[in-house]
């Protein structure tokens, strides 16, 4: 039976600023539950990115540093190299991680930086009003693809998890979602696994969560939550790589 009906210790009680039905705060809760269970709250540094989740520090009660747009993985690299004893995670949107920050993200992964990168994939730039992003679905309408994403013009959805799975520096790579109770439980296991990989120094851990963005998808929260299943057709929910389960348990 999951630990329910209780605030995780490392989750502050501040009301979330997210839109009704946004999945960000579900993932915040799971992240805090994992931080509590692993007992790492007092040696964890979170990196807030630029986007809807830039106010991470209002909600997660760990030391948090604001990273410039797209640079969380580089900032995280600087922290982890200077203080390898600290636990470092980034919390980024698809625009932050895979558009402007793709170089920083891929190189941190390729170097096998011992940090945990969390990418929330809602296929749009949420905070700025729903513009197209590298993970926008084919033919999906956004404020900057008003006629739908045209592969001839805007190319194809960027499958980050599939790319990172091929990197030797990556020790854990998975994609999850939180749009059904079952997937919420699974998402927490993935988060825990990602941090365990970091704690064992096995290399870069990447975790992508498909997430609903009702307001920018112009849907009610329930339809948006269902629509995540459509995202999953383009972005399969799967564990792509998990060195812990492949028997390698120490760097």
């Amino acid at each position, binding site marked *: *039976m*999951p630990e329910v009906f209780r605030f995780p210790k490392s989750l502050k009680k501040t*009301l979330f600023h997210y839109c009704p039905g946004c999945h960000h705060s579900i993932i915040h809760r799971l992240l805090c539950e994992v931080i509590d269970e692993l007992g790492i709250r007092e040696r964890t540094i979170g990196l807030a990115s630029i986007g809807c989740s830039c106010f991470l520090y209002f909600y997660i009660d760990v030391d948090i540093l604001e990273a410039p747009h797209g640079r969380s993985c580089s900032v995280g690299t600087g922290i982890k190299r200077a203080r390898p004893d600290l636990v470092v995670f980034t919390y980024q949107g698809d625009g932050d991680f895979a558009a402007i920050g793709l170089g920083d993200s891929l190189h941190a992964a390729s170097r096998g930086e011992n940090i945990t990168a969390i990418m929330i994939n809602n296929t749009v730039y949420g905070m700025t009003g729903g513009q197209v992003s590298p993970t926008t679905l084919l033919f999906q309408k956004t404020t900057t693809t008003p006629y739908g994403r045209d592969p001839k013009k805007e190319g194809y959805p960027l499958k980050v998890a599939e790319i990172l799975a091929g990197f030797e520096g990556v020790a854990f790579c998975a994609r999850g979602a939180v749009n059904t*109770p079952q997937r919420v439980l699974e998402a927490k296991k993935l988060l825990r696994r990602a941090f365990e990989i970091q704690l064992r120094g096995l290399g870069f851990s990447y975790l992508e969560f498909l997430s609903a963005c009702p307001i920018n998808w112009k849907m009610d929260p329930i339809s948006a*939550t269902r629509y995540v299943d459509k995202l999953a057709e383009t972005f399969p929910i799967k564990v792509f790589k998990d060195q812990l389960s492949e028997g390698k348990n120490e760097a």
Partner: protein
Amino acid sequence: MKKIKILEERCKGCGLCIEFCPKKVLGFSEKRNLQGYRVVGFYAKEKCNACGICFLMCPELVFVSEE
């Protein structure tokens, strides 16, 4: 069996709990909270077996145990 409490001020009326509650014991009440959202409420509290699915799906941590 855990008693569930609804933190009405946290609710944003997204309806996910109502949608996913297997026993269909939840629904929108007539009340509105300070933020102006219609707050979730129990239709039939006695049928609730505290399975926790509302807690899992709720983005706002509206459902907490009474202690």
